[in-house]
């Protein structure tokens, strides 16, 4: 320490400065401690609940939570939300720092990682199970949150993929609308026809989408991942898919690489959103974003099936709720989940903001009250109900990395820097390493 050397006056001055520096730290550390208490002074339990979404979802969630706090006076819920990408990173940092929120919204792709990483509580355990009722859930969907027999997350809503199109333009082109159960080759022909008659690509090049590839694979009776989390397809399968989409791109039937690359996850930046294609391949819920851009209206069509009619489409849990393994309040956390998923009043407020509810009774309850795009989505789901195979289990941890790799490797194909075969082999090698 500097104070130990030098003469006396310097010593006192130096030590005073040093003391001030340390006092500052002490104050800083001390000040913050009090705020982190999970229990309020009056014995109120404070739950942290984080999720991703937009302003509309925020408003509805806040309203529902007000109701929750009214019904459960001893519990106070602090919420926080942001866009998906920001949320994902923040949650990962929090979880890694041992600071996961009590209740968190999770994506399909996060579950395996968070569950095997010990972040999530088993919701079928005694404490949560006493208050969380899952009896009215679609059991196939519920199973997607289960790993090794433990229930780590409960699905909140379901979504499904769709070929969404500009109704007016499609009709004006005089092309027959998609029929239920159309095949991938019918889809390809339709894209060609649309391109021919409208002078712009029929749809987004689906080659970059791992989700689209999964639907195509399932149509052939295969899957992205095997049950034990290994790769469920070969480089040959992927080569065929990319050769198929790359061919359509070269013909101009689907969007050019320069258009496809501009997609950033928002519907606004898809070729359809920018007005440079007639249709898009997307999840159903985000499609509401097309409405302000295409005021004349959009239609949701099912995704193509395999050539023998095997549907590749499935209902995917659009998001889950999970509880932190180290929460101080497992019972209250489970109660919050139960409220969000099973309470009729909450359901009325929340509507379809997190996808069409998975609680069968709730789903029928809210149907009458749905309007606008929620209604469109509900009808689309109804048209598919009973025709689809059960969803695959949650993808293995490595998948969240592979999703971006998939798009990047296809970029190499669509910018004609690699052949489909080369890129597919690269991807499969990489994926196998990732899933080790």
């Amino acid at each position: 320490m500097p104070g130990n050397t030098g003469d006396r006056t310097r010593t006192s001055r130096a030590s005073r400065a040093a003391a001030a520096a340390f006092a500052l730290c002490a104050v800083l550390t001390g000040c913050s401690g009090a705020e982190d208490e999970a229990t309020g002074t009056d014995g109120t339990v404070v739950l942290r609940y984080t999720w991703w979404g937009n302003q509309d979802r925020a408003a509805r969630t806040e309203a529902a939570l007000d109701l929750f706090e009214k019904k459960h006076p001893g519990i106070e819920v602090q919420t926080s939300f942001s866009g998906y990408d920001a949320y994902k990173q923040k949650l990962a940092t929090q979880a890694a720092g041992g600071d996961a929120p009590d209740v968190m919204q999770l994506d399909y792709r996060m579950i395996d990682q968070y569950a095997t990483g010990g972040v999530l509580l088993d919701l079928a355990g005694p404490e949560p199970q006493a208050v969380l009722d899952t009896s009215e859930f679609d059991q196939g969907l519920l199973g997607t949150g289960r790993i090794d027999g433990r229930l780590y997350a409960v699905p909140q809503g379901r979504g499904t993929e769709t070929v969404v199109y500009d109704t007016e333009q499609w009709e004006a082109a005089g092309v027959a609308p998609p029929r239920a159960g159309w095949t991938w080759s019918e889809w390809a022909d339709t894209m060609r026809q649309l391109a021919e008659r409208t002078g712009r690509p029929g749809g987004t090049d689906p080659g970059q989408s791992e989700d689209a590839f999964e639907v195509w694979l399932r149509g052939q009776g295969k899957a992205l991942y095997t049950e034990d989390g290994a790769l469920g397809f070969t480089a040959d399968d992927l080569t065929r898919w990319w050769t198929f989409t790359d061919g359509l791109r070269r013909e101009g039937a689907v969007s050019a690489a320069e258009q496809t690359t501009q997609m950033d996850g928002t519907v606004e930046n898809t070729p359809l959103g920018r007005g440079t294609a007639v249709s898009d391949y997307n999840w159903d819920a985000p499609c509401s974003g097309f409405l302000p851009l295409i005021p004349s209206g959009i239609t949701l069509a099912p995704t193509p099936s395999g050539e023998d009619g095997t549907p590749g489409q499935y209902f995917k849990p659009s998001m889950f709720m999970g509880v932190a393994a180290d929460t101080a309040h497992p019972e209250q956390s489970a109660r919050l989940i139960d409220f969000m998923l099973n309470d009729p009043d909450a359901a009325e407020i929340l509507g379809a903001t997190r996808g069409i509810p998975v609680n069968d009774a709730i789903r029928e309850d809210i149907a009458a009250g749905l309007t606008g795009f929620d209604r469109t989505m509900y009808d689309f789901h109804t048209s598919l109900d009973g025709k689809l195979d059960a969803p695959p289990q949650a993808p293995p941890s490595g998948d969240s990395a592979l999703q971006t790799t998939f798009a990047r490797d296809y970029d190499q194909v669509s910018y004609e820097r690699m052949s489909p075969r080369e890129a597919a082999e690269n991807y499969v090698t990489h994926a196998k390493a990732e899933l080790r």
Partner: protein
Amino acid sequence: MTTAAPTTTAAGRKPPVNRRRVALHAGCLAALLVMLYPLAWLLATSLKPADEVIASLNLLPGTLEWSNYETALDGVNDVSVGRLLSNSLLIAGGAVLGNVLSCSLAAYAFARLRFRLRGPLFAFMIATIMLPHHAVLIPQYIIFNQLGMVNTYWPLVLPKFLATEAFFVFLIVQFMRGLPRELEEAARIDGCGPFRAFRSVVLPLTRPALITTAIFTFIWTWNDFFTQLIYLFSPEKFTLTLALRSFVDASSQSSFGPMFAMSVIALLPIVLFFLAFQRFLVEGMASSGVKG
């Protein structure tokens, strides 16, 4: 300015000087036109309706959509814009104070005082500028979490009080090295210790560097989305920069119009801060001119 030598010469040489000046201004204005075009685009977009925000290739909106601002001014997550603004100001203000204090202290030691290991420590300090901050993000988070500081402003402000931004230490060191040593020698002969010499002689002369530090710190802290995202959890602690991200979400409908409006709102305080300080920058420079 004493540097304008040509003005001291005969009147006959004035016209070319004026022409030069006109050309200089014309050049600057032309450059500005190009430079500020994207800003005009930003402003214009904040008034565009949803269907024009992304797809439109025109600078000016077809119809003026003032509701973008109404939505933005409603705040985010039940938190008012005023609150977001004061949060941002608190963090940026704390960061400015911290950086100016701690970096000038450290810089003085490096630039002017002798101590063991000065060379290696200086090299280490420079090395920390090179550290990609993603690499230390998780360890730092764990430390702050251990200290119970997550979801407070301390992780955003405390590092500035500990001179972790070596960039500014280096900046101030460079400036101090350029100051004439004779002033301090004189002060020392007058009986000033290093603390007095620092406070009364060196610090005033370093004002331009300190103001530069203040301006950069303010702007960079204000725009530092990443750190704020990681450490802040409660909506009522959110900043304007953080709130911006709540308008865009890939899994649902985004509100690009209001986001642009919010961007403009978030820009205003930095513009004001810069304009205010830029005056001091001039003063600071003029008054501290190194006359020897």
